[in-house]
């Protein structure tokens, strides 16, 4: 049986570029035309095979906290990857990419995999951001680049496959006997000594 590895992915980008739509397409293969800011979703999950591992993505949405520039540092904690989304039909949303990259450098983990997604590529006729320019920018910061359409299910799966491939293999767990854990109703395993 393949080992399941949980990977936190955080989404960044301006309000309205389609962050939630991308997750919704990826996780539920569904597109809602008038999606309201995500209510009630702490994060969504989807599991994909990668090599001899299963990658279970825990995809965190900004929950609207980006709207007034009030994302909390805890949002970035422990993320294996970040997807920065812009809207190819809105030049402004591309210009603010740099700000998100900077923010990620400041608050994100050092070894985080960064992907840049130019969303709404189904609206090519009103495109404002040339693909070449975006691609060059992504290359300059060693980020994955892809144009997506959440509406038409274009490249969404591929985006996460690319991320999966760049996740470094699991390091051997070090001999730290006091590992961190999530709180559950059950006592955490392993740490209790037995007489």
């Amino acid at each position, binding site marked *: 049986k393949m080992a399941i590895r949980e990977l936190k992915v955080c989404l960044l980008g*301006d309000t309205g570029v389609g962050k939630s739509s991308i997750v*919704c397409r990826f996780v*539920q293969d*569904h597109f*809602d*035309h008038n*999606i*309201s*800011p*995500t*209510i*009630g*979703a*702490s*994060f*969504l*999950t989807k*599991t994909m095979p990668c090599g001899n591992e299963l990658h279970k993505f*825990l995809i965190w949405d900004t*929950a*609207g*906290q980006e*709207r*007034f*520039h*009030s994302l*909390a*540092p*805890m*949002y970035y*904690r*422990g993320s294996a990857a970040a997807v920065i989304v812009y809207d190819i039909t809105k030049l*402004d949303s591309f210009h*603010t990419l740099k*700000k998100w990259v900077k923010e990620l450098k*400041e608050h994100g983990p050092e070894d985080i995999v960064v992907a840049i997604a130019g969303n709404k590529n189904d609206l090519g006729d009103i495109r404002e951001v040339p693909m070449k320019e975006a691609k060059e920018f992504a290359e300059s910061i060693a980020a994955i680049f892809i144009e997506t359409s959440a509406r038409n299910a274009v490249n969404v799966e591929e985006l996460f496959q690319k991320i999966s491939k760049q996740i470094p293999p699991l390091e051997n767990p070090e001999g*730290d*006997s*006091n*590992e*961190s*854990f*999530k*709180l*559950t*109703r*059950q*006592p*955490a395993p392993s*740490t*209790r*000594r037995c*007489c």
Partner: protein
Amino acid sequence: MAAEDLPSEFDVVILGTGLAESVVAAAFSRVGQRVLHVDRRSYYAGDWASFTFNGLLSWIQEQHVSTSLLEEGEELICLSNSDSGSIRNVQVFCFTRWITDCFVTQASQTQGEEPEADRSQSEPAKKKINYAQLVKEGRRFNIDLVSKLMYSRGSLVDLLIKSNVSRYAEFKNITRILTYRHGNVEQVPCSRADVFASRQLSVVEKRKLMRFLTSCMEETEEQRAYKGRPYLEFLSDQQLGDNLQHFLLHSIAMVTEDTPTEEGLASTRHFLHCLGRYGNTPFLFPVYGLGEIPQCFCRMCAVFGGIYCLRHSVSCLLVDKESNRCKAVIDSRGQRISCSHFVVEECYVPANQKKVATPSRFVSRAVLITDSSVLHSDSEQQVSLVTVPPIAAGCPAVRMVELCPSTMTCMPGTYLVHLTCQSVGSAYEDLSPVVTRMFRTPESHDRENCPSVLWCLYFNMADGSGVEVEGHDLPSNVYVFSGPDGGLSHERAVRQAESIFNKVLPDEDFCPPAPNPEDIIYDGDTAASTGGEDEKQEKEGAGGEEKNEEGEAGEEEKKEEGRAGEEEQKEGAGEEIHEKEGAGDLAE
């Protein structure tokens, strides 16, 4: 990203993002109230915040600005929106240049002023960390302004689990309880395994301790007879001997010599009750620091539609004269925002509306960055609580928490040490005698084997337990929260949040569980067709993580249908049993 206007109508407006405000924000939002949550600062959690090293240096500078205009004999009374006045007596010392060259500066001069590289390395085997490295690796620090721990069966842990906010954070066990005694740091045996393994206890002491710990779990006639008399008296009548008495009074009950017996017993029982749930001590600590916890509750609030705005404040309240209720607020941009309830951190309340203008009690705090642990052991990744009884008559008992790098609060090769006590004098006066005794600093002598202090900060913070939250001259639908108290637990903040929530919405559940991620259905306009599919949908992982106590998660969902599966409830029942088996490590 042009500055957008805020919506102009909310049910609840909350000013301040400390723990209690954040918990109540999540609670309101969770049951469908429209919440606007703002903080005038650029960071979350107010006096509960944690900072990177560089972030802390900026914080120090801010405090310095607000107090530097004070002259001898004057006192600062803060109006809302100016600095809170909850912080005083900030002093910073940097010893990285090492003993002879140490410098003592005012906060504002410290930043970026580290002298050139460390020349005098007293221990060639161990490379000293210099100030430039602390700054360079500053991001690896998460330095909390308050120092508390989470009781594994305390109300905060219960709330995190009940609400599912727990999935936003990870925790570590406090791995050992230490105490300072006769000039040495000793380990306090607190689990049954510890007692058996202890080398410092004699066989007789081990038996006595086990017998005492078992017997104190239930109230007896004998205990009742000591009601109102000091716990110390009760303990000494148990013929336990000095060792055990010290452990029980200072490290397990964590009370003072004159604490009444019933209180001492209650806190001993609470300690014992919390053993074994997650680890061998009763305590947990959040990875990345306590400052994460308010942020987690804020996220829960946002996930249910709450709107967040940092660097934003409320400048005035519009009060209906007839009903004496606050109808709306004017924000710092001059926008009118109507609301049915207004929740505010005490420090924002203008002095002339307050019942008592200044806090009555302060907590003394010190934060040290050191180069090694106060007690060496096989593992370098220990998280320790150290109880330090009063070092002389009239001195306060000091609580110390030593965090290792794996808690993600300090850079590799360092430890982060928090000291806390009730203020008698300034933080420096109260705590530096303990620091000098237990650590190597320019003022200490013969401390060759003690950890060296690389950098330290002293400050006083208003004690939230000494702050009035009622009786202010404010409208009836304005609720005031005090800042953090000096105690070890989070009970007070959680209780305050719950009581205000119940006052406003007496018929609503406080923080019901949020649905599991796997249960959320984006139904959009196809709501009718989702019902049948839902049931078939794979529920991988759901319920294995958490149990829904009431089995009704998501019933109140407006946009999505959360479902609480039957399997979940079944599993939950099994977990309850499991939990009971794990309880009361010592009392068995």
